């Protein structure tokens, strides 16, 4: 009798519709969700940055760093998909440190949303300038992921920035080139103060000699002549911006070496 009962329950479980558990909360919540693998309830709780308070660094709260600094920034602006709350920290941790690569597509699609917002913002800015009609659509020309050091890459097995850029690149048909390499291992950023990070970053990156030829070739064939080249640096998180600025300096330098005007933007998944 009891075994019959248990078989009935199992048979019923087989026949009932299966809802895959949510990637982030593990619950089987019904209902369709706009992001793959995540339930509706978790998606609703995502702290999107839909209108940044600081137009320079894309921060959702007032930003003393950008107002304080007087030196010119190598980037036009940064935009981030979400505010780095504890829940988002957990998501990124699951991806980066635990190695749950199912998060890759999810975070990539979230970044894509930030890209679309940036695109929209730039398009309306162009419209308000009332320039030529052909300028009324804005899109980036190249994506450059922030590199990780070789030892970190071997340990982790992947570069999260590159994977994020991959998703964006495929969806929006923007080419991606690993223009940069990390010259020395800076250790985990999360254990450092702001000043330490900035000092550390100064010489952490360099031009990637392996893609120089490819880059030159791309410049020759693809660069639009009537406006500056738009390059987006992609990373998982923007904290002080020192990483992004260090990368942007090199990208600017590379552009001017070839005699092109380059506009560098940055797109990160989270803004702390």
């Amino acid at each position: 009798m009891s075994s019959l009962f248990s078989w009935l329950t199992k048979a019923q479980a087989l026949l009932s519709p299966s809802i895959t558990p949510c990637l982030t909360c593990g619950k089987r919540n019904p209902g369709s969700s706009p992001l793959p693998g995540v339930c509706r309830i978790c998606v609703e709780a995502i702290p999107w940055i839909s209108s940044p308070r600081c137009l320079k660094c894309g921060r959702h709260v007032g930003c003393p760093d950008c107002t304080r600094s007087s030196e010119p920034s190598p980037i036009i602006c940064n935009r981030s998909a979400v505010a780095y709350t504890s829940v988002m920290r957990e998501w990124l941790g699951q991806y980066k440190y635990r190695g749950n690569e199912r998060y890759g597509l999810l975070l990539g699609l979230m970044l894509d949303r930030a890209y679309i917002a940036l695109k929209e913002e730039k398009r309306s800015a162009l419209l308000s300038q009332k320039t030529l009609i052909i300028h009324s659509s804005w899109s980036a020309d190249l994506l450059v992921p922030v590199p990780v050091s070789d030892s970190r890459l071997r340990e982790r097995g992947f570069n999260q920035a590159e994977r994020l850029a991959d998703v964006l690149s495929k969806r929006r048909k923007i080419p991606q080139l690993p223009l940069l390499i990390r010259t020395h291992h800076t250790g985990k950023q999360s254990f450092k103060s702001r000043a330490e990070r900035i000092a550390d970053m100064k010489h952490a990156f360099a031009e990637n000699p392996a893609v120089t030829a490819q880059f030159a070739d791309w410049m020759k064939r693809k660069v639009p002549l009537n406006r500056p080249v738009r390059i987006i640096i992609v990373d998982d998180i923007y904290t002080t911006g020192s990483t992004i600025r260090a990368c942007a300096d090199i990208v600017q330098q590379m552009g001017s070496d070839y005699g092109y005007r380059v506009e560098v933007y940055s797109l990160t998944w989270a803004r702390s």
Partner: protein
Amino acid sequence: MRTAVYVLECRGIWRVWISLDLTVDRWWWSGAGLESQGRGLVTVDKLVLISPALPLGWAVKLRDHFKQRDGMRNWGTKEWGQYVSSVLEPELKEEREAGGIGEKEWFSDGGSLWRLPEQSGGFIEQSRKNNDCRGNDLDYALLESEVEQFVHAVAGRSLLQPEIEALLAEGLPELMGRWRQAAQLAHLQGRLELTAAVGCDAPAAHGARARQLPAGAGTLARAAARLPHVWWRGAVARRAVSRCLRCGSAPTGRTACAACGLMGCAYCEACLALGRSRACALLLRSAALPAVRCTAALDPTAAAGRWGLSPAQAGAAGAALGFLAERRECSAKKCPERFLLWAVTGAGKTEMIFPLLEAVLAAGGRALVATPRRDVVLELAPRLAKAFPAEILAVLYGGSAERWVSGRLTLATTHQLLRFHRGFDLVIIDELDAFPYHNDPLLAYAAEQACKVDGSFIYLSATPPQEMQRLVRSGRLPHARVPVRFHGHPLPVPQHLTMTSVQTCLKRGNLPRSLIHTLRKSLERVAQIFCFVSRIAHIEGLLVLLRRSFPGVVIEGTSSKDPFRAEKVTAFRNRAISLLVTTTILERGVTVPRSDVFILDADSDLFDEASLVQMAGRAGRSKDDPGGHVVFASPQWTRSQRGAISQIRTMNMIARRKGYISKETPR
């Protein structure tokens, strides 16, 4: 990671070796330092380097699926290349399909991925030359002493590379830079097993596993575990079933990997929380040692006297001791023997395990106590430390500071068992039916891996799973019952109270008179009340109704979602709260001296028989108030409720028959 792979002929037998550092292998096989154990005995006739850097998963497959063929001695580069391609054919095909670089690019890429060195024998001759005066950059005398330390530090463990590094950083920092050499030498000495964390199991081990899975894993899980075995025969020629060797799950993730360079490197998603196990990740396991035998000389009565056990406890502990001392005739079965200690709630299980642990430790063995729940580990730790003051006790749980402490006595949550391999002579699993151990094949696999093949398993439970109860009934599982609580009073038998469902009460906005009346009686006898409900969502509404009915009584509610749960439980223990509305999260572990138990909606699907018995077991635990009241309140009378009551009655009956009931509780 990538490792070097070579084949070696030794007295006509060919074997494939993987190497973390070829200089160690060169030195070892060149026969330098003949005085060391075993090494000088082999003469190496031929050695062929297959690849200096092959993805570890592939290297391990080459090693584990190696079949000697005629004429290997005369093979040249081409033949070896063909052989390797044929063994790795499915992997190469998969890699091509995944969009990875093709075979040609792969192998020309590294210069000579499996091209032989210029002269086939060159490798070893060159090293002979180098080693004539031990003119290598490694100090091998030092290395050998380091190997001793290393092998000792990882004894009985199963570790991934980051875990090895963490362990060394804490225990042997001087070895940090050279652990690969030490591990390689230990591997050559046969004291360490190097393998890929995700890979194919040898077919023999596979069958054993399906048999061995504890009954607790449930029918479905066991069926699932048996499934690959059935497939095995058909699939063996085509493709072996791969699994995570650490947790036993099938790897479900597959991504490009920078560490080995493959486009499709499989990884296990089931045990991610303990560090990622993947096809190219090194899994280092210490070679299994035989288990110790406990001597039967230990006198059960003396042990009972020393630990202050009641007659019922002493009887069961004695039976378990006898089980440990038994000579195992069937050790050829290659799986640990199992024993069930079926002790009612409040029987004093912890005291009973002390003599068992003592017996194993006295015989020079290593013992492990595992429990699914962290709070139980934290509660048990000081008691074990007090009982065995001379032993180093390693207390392991997620986030514990003693992760790499190596003691002969280990107390751990079941998840931590993934880090052990054939390390313990005795494994005691407490509350094996509790969440999350219940029905989790991963934890069952981990527990089995942690025990030596000829070691012993003891399960402790008040409510063993159906499967295990069946084995007990049919006499296929040795066991001992403790049918009575330590204070010698019978278990309170639950009373049934017919009432409307909580949902209806909340809708109507009042509670049935009968329930209020019974609750009032309990409050009048100054008992503290556990009020169990089936759904978290009901707690708030019920609190409002109860507070209205009993003004002046401190009534609180808590659940797994409550951030103040710990505080409220403490307050309840300290009698600051009189009535606590809660869910099954408090069905175990919390003991208050004078308590009554009310289970509302006892007919809910969420309360199975085991859980009803556990909740009922919260009442009458103290010897000052052994006759607490238990009420099953529900509109319907269900099988689970009937089963729970009959289980309790059976235990009481056995206890009476054996004369364990010292006092009948006045009703």
